Every structure is written in structure tokens, then in C-alpha cells.
């Protein structure tokens, strides 16, 4: 995490930018190299938001770097515009628009598919620049004669030349770029970016429109790239066509990996190392073209052994030192007296617009078939307001499939699902969660690289801000009511004392409770729990049963569970599924006496 002290990072950045031109030349940096580092650093800020924060590794950022650069250079060299600043802004907008178009195509897939598609699309941009558009872009000659900026204020006019004034021009934009990026990563949107990197399915399940957020990150990266491309033209007085090449994208990726992703400053550090080695190895060691071989080897070794880059490595080192000093905080256990906590987390305030009578959730004749196999056959199911319903059934009864259809993770082959009188069949999981229906998973679905508190913040943000909101510059602690909701959720599940521990270091029972807390923090009016007691020790089991008793007040709960004792203790009504169909429904007493149920579980032996 970046420091919590306000403006510390910004202040240090400003200091560093002022000091750099005095220090770096003594280390053997050419002045022009320092300017280039800033351009790469700025280019990399956007890329880091995309890759380091959101987890989307694009090998096609050259497309936007080139687009921004050539749009700005074209406007300036053809005298369509005299203001360099205005041309840079228009170039940035052009790159952002290209980012929207490319993002819509590329983000249809994830992982390596995404990487390949971005490469291919960036190559298309390169070919477009090189041939069909060469009348405007100069083809393989690029656009020479890009002017340097001139600022006029009344009678006073200042012309940015080379040397210090050019450095200052670049440094100011790098500073603005980093300040904006810091705001973005500290905003609610930034938090959701990290959640998407860690577990996109869960980010969707707690109610965030993941696709839109990914596109947002993509467009931010494109805009940064476009601006940096424009600056490249201004810096060199010439817009080179190699801005569009695969090499450019590759260099950006490598620099970010060298410096460390997810840090914002990684790309700057990586560019410093890269360009320094280039100059140093070529001039001092007379390695000539072999410098890139050395660099490639350094890079491979770094990826193998220092997977989080130089900054990540330093941070791990600092973490090791700090961990020795920090005493461990004990787990407080689940709150038994959770009255106060309950009052504030209570079910959704926002969503209960009108009083509603009738069942909260209703499934009408839902059937699911996979090829020839019918997993669920014509199930009718209704849950009343405030009820705690148990669903049981032998293995293979179709409970999981049924549950997935209730939360819209899977669409039924036929039948409807009605929530609060509204047909939700075929809706997106995030939209359904926003209506007040969510679930906790049988296998923990957490945001592994975040702390416990940050995990809950992600879920609470969905409830506070809706599916999608572009509050990029709002500080996350300014989201109204967020803090209280997070604290009371933490208290409710009894994890308050462990709030700042990374999820990876939690015990299994704690992770299980966090899993439930994630669903709770979205303030659902109907909560579906998929085997909440799976894999628990007797002690953890007793605590979780208590927790379920606490959270049921004011909520409607549906629990799928294999632990019969717990179900019969908790539930008011029980639904039994068998071989994909509804077998019985009734109070625990009725179910216990039901001979059909006994037969299903015990194969008819106990019926006698």
C-alpha cells in the first residue's frame, strides 16, 4: 500500500523530479535520456493501472502511444493548430477513443487471449499508419518538424527550448500524471481494479459491473499512452513510426516488470534502468548491439527470481524488517452479542423501496439439462420474507445447479425465477446482487492479495455505489457510510481484530467467515449460503452456527448444507431435493418423519 500520510508520495515525487537534473548527469545520464525516461514513465503509469492494478497484461499499448503521438504531430506539423498543449490534449482524446474501440473487442477475452488480441490489433495500427494512412502520417518516414511549445500570458511569452526548459516541461506533466494516477488508485474505482485482478468472478458476484471497470482501466491506459506519445513527438521534434511497433509495447512491458508492477513508479524505475544500461553498455563497455542481449538476460533473471520487480523486492525486504517488530493480534472470535452491529448492517436500506407481500424468491418450474443429462427437473420453490430455509439432498441431487440458477450464475433451460415480484431470469449476476440477492460460496472466493478489511470494502462499495460509477478522483474514505458498514460487518463476523491482515495469512476458519462477510457486506435482503460449514472443525462449526443465528435477524436466508444437525437446528422449513427433482418440503419435524426422505437417504432400510 502506498503511504497513508497525505501528500507524502506526491511531495517526494516533486522533490525527486526537481533533484533529478542535478544528480543524474553526474551518474552518466545524457540530458536527453532523462527526458526520455519521463516519457516512458508517463506511458507506463497508465499501463501499470491496466496491468499492475487491474491484472490485464496488454502487449499492444503501442497502438495508443502511436495514435496520440501522430494525431498531435499531424495537427502541429500541418499548421492546423498552433497550441502544442491543445494538440496534445486532442491526441490524448484520440488515443482514448481508440482505446474504447479496441477495448470493446479485446476485453471479450481474458488472459493469454487478451494478450494475443492486443498484439494483433496493435500490429494493425502499425500497418494502417505505414500504408493506407501514409499520406497523413508520413508512412515509414514519420512526421518531422514537430514544434516545441510556447506559452503566452499577456505580453509575457515563454518558449520551451531544449535542455532545462524541456526537462521542466516533461517533469511538470509527469508530476500531473502521477498525482492523477495516485488519486485514481486510491479511489473506489482503484480498489475495484485490484479486486478484479484478484478475483473477477467474485467482484462480479458482489455487484460490480466488471466489464465496464475493465474498459475504464483500458481507456485510462490508452489516454496516458496517447499523451506520452504526443510528448515523444515534442521532445524529439519528430514523430517516429516505430512508436507503433511491437518493440515499443514490449519495451514498456519489460520496463514495468523490471521496476515492479502495481506501484505506479515501477515503469519509471524500469525505464531508468533500461535507458541507463543502453547508454552505459554501449558507450562505456563498447558492447555495441550486444547491450540488448545483456538487458534480455537481466530481464529473464528478474522475472525468474524477483517476480515483483525491483520495487516489489525492496518492499518485501522492508516488510521482512517490519514484520519482526509487529506483535500478532489475536482473533476475537465471532461476536455473540451482535445487537449493535446488527442494527447498522441490517438488510439493505436502499433497496426496500416499496413494501412487498408474497414470497421473496420464487422459482417456477425450473429445469436445467446439460446435453442429455437433466440436473434439475421442473422445480417449484418459494421462500417467504424472514424465513430461514434449509436445502438438503444426497450427493448428486442437483443442489449446486439449483443454487447457481437462483443467483443467475447459470441460466435455467426453462422456467422463471422471480425475486421480489420481479422476473430475474437471465439477468447478470452483478445486477441481481444489486437487487439484494447474493450468495456465499462453497469454495472460498476471496480477493487474495488484499487485506481482510479491503475485501469487505470491495463488497460494501458495490452496495454504496451501485454496479458502475466513475468516481475516479474521489477518495475511498469519502464514500458516505462505507466505514461504518465495513466496521459493523467486521464486528458481526468477529474479525475486527484481524482487519489489516492479508487474506493469504488467515486461518481456514477465518477465511470461511470472511467468505460469509463478503456476501453480508453487500447488504442482501436474501442471502444464499452454499455449505457454510464445509470443512470446519467442531469449534469453528459451533461458532459459525452462532453467526448464522445472528445474521438471520431481519434477513431471509437459504442454506444448502450437508451437516444435518446444523440444518435441523437452524432451519424453519426444509426443502429436500432428490435426483434433480423436489422430493419433500416441510418443517424439520415433518421432514424427519417423511418416509420418502428416509428412503432417499438410507435406501429404505430405516423405513421399517
Amino acid at each position, binding site marked *: 500500500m502506498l503511504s497513508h500520510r497525505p501528500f507524502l508520495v506526491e511531495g517526494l515525487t516533486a522533490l525527486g523530479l526537481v533533484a533529478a537534473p542535478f544528480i543524474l548527469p553526474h551518474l552518466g545520464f545524457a540530458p536527453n535520456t532523462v527526458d526520455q525516461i519521463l516519457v516512458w514513465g508517463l506511458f507506463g503509469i497508465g499501463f501499470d493501472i491496466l496491468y499492475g492494478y487491474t491484472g490485464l497484461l496488454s502487449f499492444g499499448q503501442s497502438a495508443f502511444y502511436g495514435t496520440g503521438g501522430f494525431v498531435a504531430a499531424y495537427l502541429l506539423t500541418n499548421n492546423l493548430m498552433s497550441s502544442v498543449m491543445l494538440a496534445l490534449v486532442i491526441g490524448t482524446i484520440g488515443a482514448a477513443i481508440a482505446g474504447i474501440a479496441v477495448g470493446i473487442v479485446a476485453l471479450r477475452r481474458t488472459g493469454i487471449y487478451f494478450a*494475443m488480441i492486443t498484439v494483433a490489433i496493435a500490429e494493425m495500427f502499425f*500497418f494502417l499508419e505505414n500504408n493506407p494512412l501514409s499520406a497523413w502520417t508520413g508512412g515509414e518516414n514519420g512526421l518531422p518538424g514537430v514544434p516545441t511549445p510556447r506559452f503566452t500570458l499577456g505580453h509575457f511569452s515563454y518558449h520551451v527550448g531544449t535542455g532545462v526548459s524541456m526537462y521542466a516541461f516533461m517533469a511538470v506533466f509527469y508530476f500531473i500524471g502521477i498525482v492523477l494516477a495516485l488519486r485514481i488508485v486510491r479511489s473506489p474505482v482503484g480498489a475495484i481494479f485490484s479486486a478484479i485482478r484478484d478475483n473477477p468472478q467474485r467482484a462480479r458476484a458482489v455487484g460490480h459491473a466488471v466489464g465496464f471497470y475493465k474498459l475504464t482501466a483500458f481507456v485510462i491506459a490508452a489516454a496516458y499512452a496517447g499523451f506520452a506519445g504526443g510528448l515523444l513527438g515534442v521532445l524529439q521534434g519528430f514523430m517516429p513510426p516505430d512508436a507503433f511497433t511491437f518493440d515499443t509495447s514490449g519495451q514498456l512491458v519489460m520496463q514495468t516488470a523490471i521496476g515492479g508492477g502495481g506501484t505506479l513508479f515501477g515503469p519509471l524505475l524500469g525505464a531508468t534502468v533500461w535507458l541507463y544500461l543502453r547508454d552505459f553498455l554501449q558507450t562505456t563497455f563498447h558492447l555495441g548491439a550486444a547491450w540488448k542481449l545483456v538487458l534480455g538476460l537481466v530481464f529473464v533473471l528478474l522475472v525468474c527470481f524477483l517476480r515483483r520487480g525491483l520495487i516489489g523486492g525492496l518492499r518485501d525486504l522492508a516488510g521482512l524488517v517490519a514484520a519482526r517488530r509487529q506483535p500478532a493480534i489475536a482473533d476475537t472470535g465471532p461476536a455473540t452479542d451482535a445487537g449493535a452491529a446488527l442494527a447498522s448492517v441490517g438488510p439493505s436500506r436502499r433497496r426496500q423501496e416499496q413494501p412487498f407481500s408474497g414470497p421473496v424468491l420464487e422459482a417456477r418450474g425450473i429445469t436445467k439439462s446439460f446435453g442429455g443429462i437433466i440436473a434439475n427437473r421442473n422445480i417449484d420453490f418459494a421462500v417467504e420474507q424472514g424465513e430461514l430455509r434449509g436445502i438438503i439432498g444426497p450427493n448428486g441431487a442437483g443442489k449446486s445447479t439449483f443454487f447457481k440458477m437462483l443467483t443467475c450464475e447459470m441460466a435455467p433451460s426453462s422456467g422463471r425465477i422471480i425475486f421480489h415480484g420481479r422476473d430475474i431470469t437471465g439477468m447478470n449476476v452483478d445486477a441481481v446482487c444489486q437487487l439484494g440477492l447474493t450468495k456465499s460460496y462453497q469454495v472460498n472466493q476471496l480477493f487474495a492479495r488484499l487485506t481482510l478489511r479491503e475485501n469487505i470494502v470491495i463488497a460494501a462499495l458495490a452496495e454504496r455505489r451501485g454496479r458502475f460509477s466513475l468516481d475516479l478522483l474521489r477518495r475511498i474514505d469519502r464514500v458516505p457510510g462505507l466505514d461504518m458498514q465495513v466496521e459493523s460487518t467486521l464486528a458481526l463476523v468477529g474479525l475486527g481484530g484481524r482487519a489489516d491482515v492479508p487474506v493469504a495469512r488467515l486461518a481456514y476458519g477465518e477465511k470461511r467467515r470472511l467468505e460469509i462477510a463478503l456476501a453480508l457486506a453487500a447488504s442482501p435482503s436474501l442471502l444464499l449460503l452454499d455449505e457454510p460449514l464445509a470443512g470446519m472443525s467442531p469449534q469453528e462449526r459451533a461458532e459459525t452456527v452462532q453467526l448464522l443465528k445472528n445474521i438471520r435477524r431481519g434477513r431471509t436466508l437459504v442454506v444448502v448444507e450437508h451437516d444435518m444437525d446444523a440444518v435441523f437446528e437452524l432451519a424453519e422449513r426444509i426443502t429436500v431435493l432428490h435426483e434433480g427433482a423436489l422430493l419433500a418440503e416441510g418443517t424439520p419435524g415433518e421432514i424427519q418423519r417423511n418416509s420418502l426422505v428416509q428412503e432417499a437417504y438410507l435406501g429404505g432400510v430405516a423405513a421399517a
Partner: protein
Amino acid sequence: MITWPNFVSQLFNGLASGALLALISSGLTIIYGTLGVLNLAHGAMFMLGGYAGYVAYHATGSFTIAVIVGAAFLIVVGGLLELVVVRHFYSRPPEDQLLVTFGIGIVIVELVRLGFGSLSKTVLPPSWAMGVTPMGFLIYPTYRIVVTVIAAAALAVLYLVLYRTRLGMIVRAGIEDSGMVGMLGINVYRVFMVVFGIGAMAAGFAGIINAPVVSLTPDMGDSILVETFVVVVIGGVGSFPGAILGGLISGEILSLTSMIDPAYSEVMLFAVMTLVLMLRPQGLLGMPSRE
């Protein structure tokens, strides 16, 4: 001017480059399918194959030996890469795998540049395949025909290995679920090493037989790598038949578009890829859940 002979000869050109692309892409796709690693050094393998063939050709003067030596060299290089580097990345995120194979690609390219310089090198086709062959109403370069036939034969051999041998059965099972294959008592790691070697060899082999058509430069793998991506995205990542279909489609697109206007051939290729992505995101012969 579009004339019948012109059109037919472009159709043949498309077939030749399509068969080559199919061969290279099938290497990429079986590595990905089996190991789950997208090898960004695949373009470098193609280039390395060309240079290995060049060295062997100049040492022996025999094109046939050059092809054999080059292919054997690449299977060794591929196997070693898997053993020394790639193996340690199976449990790491896919992004790290991309980064490390990308880095390996750069190292290989720069090593070749160090050894051979940046200037292009040429390999002559074997004497019996020089010149032109009259084919009814058009005259066609003999070596292009030879390339097509060799590439098709190599694909057929690859098909036989994949679908008719024990190793192939394990590889195809590994594509479905490599964890399960391991649990059945098969040494998956050795299979992985062989698969990486075969995948690299497919690219290297294509590099050698293509060498007489183009001239060799250390950077020649970059653009091939990108075209290979397009091929597997069109055909479906991890699908061997998809790589062949995608390769042939891409070859024809490139060559038929360049008959109308060469400037648009690559652009057209990417446009088709985008279209496939919009209409059938998993690729023509890919399975929906494959990510």
C-alpha cells in the same frame, strides 16, 4: 490487373504461406494446449530454425541435411528451454509465463544478432527445386510448390504423431486435463519436455524450408509471431485442426488481398480476426470454455 492466371497463382501463394503458417501455429497451439503456456519465444524459434538450416547448409552444401540438422537442433533447444526455464513457471500466473518467454525470445534474437550480424542471409533452394514449373496456363516457381508439399507432409506427420501414437494420446489427454494425466502415473514432465521440443521444432522446421523464399534476419520472427497469434485466435487456441484451418484462411487472406492492394493485406487479416472474435469468440474450431 486481376487476371485468371494471376488469381490462380495468388491462390497458390496463399496455399504455400498458409501451409507454413499452419505448421508454425500448430507448434504454438500444441504447446499451449498441453502445457498451458503461450510461448512468446515462438517467433524466435522460427528464426532460429532458419539460421540453423543456414549454418548446416553452408557446412555441408546439402539442403536435405540442413533441414534435418535444423529440425533436430530446434527440438533440443525447445526441450532444454522447457527443462531449464519454462518448467518453473507452470504454477505461476499466466502473465509471468508471458513475460519470461518474451524475455527468452529477446535473448535468442540478440544471440543470433551477435553471432551473425543484422545483415540478411540467404539460403539457396536445392538445385532440383530451382526454376519454374509450367502448370497449364501459368508458370509457377518450383520451390513454392515444394514448400507447400513439405509443409503439408510435416503437418500430416504431426497429425499422425498426435492422433495415432501413445505419446499423442497422452498429449491430447493432457490438453483436456494434465493434472489427471499425472495422477494416472504418467510422467507428465517428460511429456511436457517432448511437447515443447516438438512445438519448437514445428516452428524451426518452417523456418528452414521458408529460408530460400525469404532472406534471414534476426528480427524475422516478430511479424511471424503476430501472424501466428491471428491464426490461432481465428482457429481456436489449443486446437490442432483449428491451427491448420486458421493458417490456410490467413494465408489466403494475405495473398488474395495483396493481389488487390498489398498495403491492405495485413489490415484485412486483422479485420477478419476481429470479425471472428465478435461472432465466435472461442475461434472457429475452439471450445467455448478454453481461456
